[in-house]
């Protein structure tokens, strides 16, 4: 393993801003993995740190197969994480909305450009991503439909679901989208949570990445074969929204199988505790996403279900 400084930038008032990469093996650029690009992606960074640890161990045991180079970048935004912010601390811009970056552009465009320079040319790219709405998911792999994606490859992670999303204009500046355009097979692995560390789901995500690496001959690793991953188109998800605002009292969790009309949550009046709205499943399905804030606004997304 080689620990490398991939990007350094002086700060006017803080320590240097540094992005470190951990490179394993040499030869064909087989896999790049990126962890936290936002300061609250604690679970994502945790998974990446475990991955670095595991690969070090495999390397020492001679179980990293020759001819493959693997790059792991656990954090692209330590400045935000160290002060509890999600985005770039100075101007609140999102590095993951700046790809492919611009080396002569604004600060986060430069960070994205430097990252992308190091991340290009790999056969596979994995980003440990988070969602723009606060909440928990069933761990899954997400791909963008760009015309370059290969959904069967994503099933090699052995996670329960593979979600395919049609990109919106705002998605065209993400790492995942640009990786695909630059001919890397790109996957976003959603490790369940953001802002907290959950060891069980982190282990699932780590196992998924190791399973994928073993499947493609990058490591020798014996693991549980995983799930036969079900492919879901994002537009097929059933959105369950809040018809009233209030305190959300949740009665289910991600991965629960629910029946049509089953009560998923109650929205309570924050003054007298009375039930303002019973949130019920509009169809039979599986809870794929659940928002986790205790207070909900009217029209906010509470659940996304995979129809049975």
């Amino acid at each position, binding site marked *: 393993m080689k620990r490398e400084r991939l990007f350094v*930038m*002086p700060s006017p008032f803080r320590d240097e801003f540094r992005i470190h990469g951990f490179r394993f093996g040499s030869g064909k650029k087989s896999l790049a993995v990126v962890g936290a690009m936002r300061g609250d992606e604690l679970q994502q960074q945790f998974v990446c740190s475990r991955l670095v640890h595991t690969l070090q161990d495999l390397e020492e045991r001679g179980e990293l197969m020759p001819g493959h180079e693997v790059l792991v970048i656990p954090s692209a935004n330590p400045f935000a994480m160290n002060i509890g912010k999600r985005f770039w601390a100075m101007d609140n811009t999102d590095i993951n909305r700046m790809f492919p970056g611009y080396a002569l552009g*604004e600060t986060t465009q430069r960070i994205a450009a430097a990252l992308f320079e190091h991340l290009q040319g790999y056969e596979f790219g994995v980003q440990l991503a988070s969602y723009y709405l*606060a909440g928990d998911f069933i761990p899954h792999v997400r791909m963008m439909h760009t015309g370059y994606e290969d959904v069967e490859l994503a099933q090699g992670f052995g996670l329960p679901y593979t979600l395919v999303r049609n990109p919106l204009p705002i998605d065209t500046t993400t790492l995942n989208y640009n990786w695909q355009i630059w001919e890397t097979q790109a996957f976003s692995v959603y490790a369940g949570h953001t802002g907290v560390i959950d060891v069980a789901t982190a282990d699932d995500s780590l196992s998924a990445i190791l399973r994928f690496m073993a499947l493609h001959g990058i490591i020798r690793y014996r693991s549980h074969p995983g799930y036969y991953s079900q492919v879901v188109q994002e537009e097929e998800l059933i*959105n369950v929204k809040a018809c009233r*605002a209030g305190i959300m009292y949740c009665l289910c969790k991600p991965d629960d199988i629910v029946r049509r009309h089953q009560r998923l949550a109650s929205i309570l009046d*924050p003054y007298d505790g009375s039930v303002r709205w019973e949130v019920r499943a509009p169809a039979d399905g599986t809870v794929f996403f659940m928002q986790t804030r205790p207070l909900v*606004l*009217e*029209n906010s997304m509470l659940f996304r279900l995979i129809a049975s």
Partner: protein
Amino acid sequence: MIKTVISTELPVDEHLLIRKNSISSGSGKKRICIVTGTHGDELEGQYICYRIGSILQEHPECLDGTVEIYPALNPLGIDSITRGIPSFDLDMNRIFPGDPMGSMAENTAYNIIEDLKGADLVLDIHSSNIFLYEVPQVRINQLTADRLVPLARYLNLDFLWVHEAATVLEATLAYSLNALNTPTLVVEMGVGMRITMSYGDQLVGGILNLMRHLGVWTGDVPEPPAGHRTILSTKGTVEFINASASGVFIPLIRQSNEVEAGQSIGRIVDPLRGVVLQEVAVDRPGFVFTIRAYPVVYEGSLLARVYREDKA
């Protein structure tokens, strides 16, 4: 008449209210909409809304049609000095045309479009952010330049920037409305969290001038200052000047400056060591229409935008 365009319940005894003042007079059927406050840290448009509302109410006899004023598309952001919608990750001006089945923000964006579409003209007023100071200008996507530049000229602002199309900008309010055949002009001026009255008065005069051109205003229109000209960007190029060092930027000019080749526009200094890290100069003459307002900079921070007519 004050109308509530959107009312969304918040958890504890409050509604998110997006309101407009709809002012009608005469028999004219045209509708002009003035919208601002998409980004909660941009306040220049508040003065415009106040002034236009005040003038129209003082002189209803000069109005022939409807003017609708939306001071706050993102009221929670304005109230909490938050650029975006509090508790929502995405820039509100990157989620249009919205989605009636989407999250609260996407649903709000959809309903805003529904309310604005069909207007004869929409003015979407922005004031950069807290980092940059902008001369009064109109920004127009090159895809809509043929239709919008002639209208924008009536605003008598300092600069019309016809910029390249970018996929990510297809999710803006202006792009979405123009795609629905509702002509929409984007104004940028001043700086975040402040009101620059001189710019505001200039734009108010321009709006009345444009209203007169559209046949909805017959009252007085202030003349632009003698010698005023509007620069159209299509005759030249725009250069971005970014910081090469991290430090504190000290501007040596104000925006709206004509600069000479070699002229220093500012310097980046190191307050700890007491040294200059970068002298920021322009290499050719031009017109500075953006200048850094917030002093702390990192490598890459935008310091200025300079327009040159020489087609370099």
